[in-house]
């Protein structure tokens, strides 16, 4: 992987995004402002939720804030690639960048780079604002938590790869991104721990990488769990990531070959 080329694409994405200054400022202000309703809802539900979240920290505000922060990464991981491919096709830049000797994997990583960094910045702001308002996190575990958060992000990128493949071949992402985002929200433990989900739904919850990642993240950051203690969840998450990446890469390669055969890389 050519890191300097990845950085160059990331830089170009950043320069393009930062040329829309109002949009950037609104996004940052909106991120920070989102802490207030989260705090109010968490305070109201604290007595109800305290028992249910005892294994993932006792404070519902922290629990909810971590769920929200993690959830901000999800649509970015899933939607960045298809939307980048879509806009590159309609602009005509996709043909040009794919016409260089740089490998598609490098280009796709560059497309993801800016989105990841920007979301990480927003997440940091959200967590900092939450900490100021009383959310309790174990800062000593922040590096491990960051690694888990990155792994959650990476685990969802293949869904974006599959959606991007669909854009290349059929000019639509199809329903997959929405399905994954909505079901992950409902079954992945964003707003409540997965063990409160009705028994018949729990097997479905286990199908989503978010379930494992979020549980591990909360246990590390709010309960001070060690890596060894969350290893089963992380192993599951990594296995899913590997399998999903294999599927996503295969589908993207096939779609790229199809588009090159059809000459449709530049036609939207």
């Amino acid at each position, binding site marked *: 992987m050519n890191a300097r080329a990845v950085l160059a*694409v990331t830089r170009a994405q950043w320069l393009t995004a930062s040329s829309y200054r109002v949009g950037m400022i609104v996004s940052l202000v909106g991120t920070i402002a989102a802490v207030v309703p989260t705090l109010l809802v968490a305070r109201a539900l604290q007595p109800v939720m305290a028992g249910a979240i005892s294994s993932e920290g006792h404070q519902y505000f922290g629990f909810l804030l971590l769920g929200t922060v993690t959830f901000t990464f999800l649509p970015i991981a899933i939607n960045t690639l298809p939307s980048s491919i879509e806009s590159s096709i309609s*602009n005509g830049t996709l043909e*040009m960048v794919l*016409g260089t000797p740089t490998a598609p994997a490098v280009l796709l990583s560059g497309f993801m780079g800016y989105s990841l960094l920007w979301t990480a910045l927003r997440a940091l702001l959200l967590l900092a604002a939450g900490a100021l308002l009383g959310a309790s996190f174990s800062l000593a575990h922040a590096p491990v938590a960051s690694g888990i958060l990155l792994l959650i992000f990476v685990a969802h990128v293949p869904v974006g790869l599959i959606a991007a493949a669909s854009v290349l071949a059929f000019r639509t992402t199809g329903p997959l991104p929405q399905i994954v985002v909505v079901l992950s929200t409902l079954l992945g433990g964003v707003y409540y721990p997965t063990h409160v989900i009705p028994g018949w739904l729990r097997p479905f919850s286990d199908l989503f990488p978010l379930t494992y990642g979020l549980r591990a993240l909360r246990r590390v950051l709010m309960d001070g769990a060690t890596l060894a203690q969350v290893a089963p969840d992380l192993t599951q998450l990594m296995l899913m990531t590997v399998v999903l990446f294999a599927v996503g890469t295969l589908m993207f390669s096939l779609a790229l*070959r199809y588009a090159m055969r059809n000459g449709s890389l*530049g036609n939207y």
Partner: protein
Amino acid sequence: MGAATAPRLEPSVSPSAFEPDGSVAVGVYGLTKRFARQRTWGQLLRAPLRNEQVTVVDDVTWTVAPGELFGLLGPNGAGKTTIFKMLAGITALDGGSATVGGCDVTHDTVRVRRSVGCVMANDRTLYWRLSALENLRLFAALYGLYGRAARERSREVLRTVELTDAGDKLVANFSSGMRQRLLIARALLPRPKVLLLDEPTRSLDPLSARSFRAFLRSELVAGTECTVLLATHSSEEAMDLCDRVAVLDRGRLLAHGTTRDLGALYGGEWYCIWTRDPEHPALLTSAADGRMLHVTVAQADAIGWSCLRAQIPGGPDRAAALLLSLAGDGVRISRFERVQLTLADLLERIVVEPHRP
């Protein structure tokens, strides 16, 4: 005077087979490309599995020597852009083969991409929210140039296309001509052995187009010594710039050869005579005795001059003699000029009667 009919022609310059060798900068050998035909809902419902294809490049063969300026001339839909995309490794081949700098475009795509600079006929392929320099630095990185080397090369190519002062300006604020130059600067970044220019003067006004052609000749071809392939639907541009030209229509190679040969074969004997007396007996006699063929008269202009178009066989001396004779007979003539060969004329002459028996 009658309507024009097709002129008689010399034999077409026929495509012949070539063997790939080191002296060939670009070679296409039986190149073929088919795309799926767009089908209506009704057709889809009636036969959902039928795979209808349309051939957009049909068994095309030619080679280009290193340092040559080669033109692909043809109307819209001739297959020029598709050929360029196949040569640039952006579109896959369906038949035949193609080489760039000795590398096969299908099996050695990365090396081909390193040696090709591509200017497509779409200035949206630039990042409009970035400055010219930022655009170039991004693509420099994608061609493997980083840091200082990328900055220096970017400034160098901006100098080549005379955009030095506009480096920090957003591309969105560029004029069409500036964007066209920036597209060329981008294509020059990797020091390409082969430059593909797809309708480079399409969005330029006549003055900018003329200056661009001069720049193309003096700076690009003479200055960089790279092989240039130019796709255009302007026969004037192709004849003016190129050493050799391939004429394409609906994916087929109709003719190819030196511009001099093609011009002589298909456009050498047509003249336009501006006269006040289109019905003058001397003109009628000249048409009747075969000194002028296929004569047509356009409606007179606002001040009464009519343009009479005709083929005058026998070369320039016969044309000069006819002019003297007409003037001597009292035909009032303000202008007597050779007609610039248009693409439409060229295609018509090649297609309608490609071979003289």
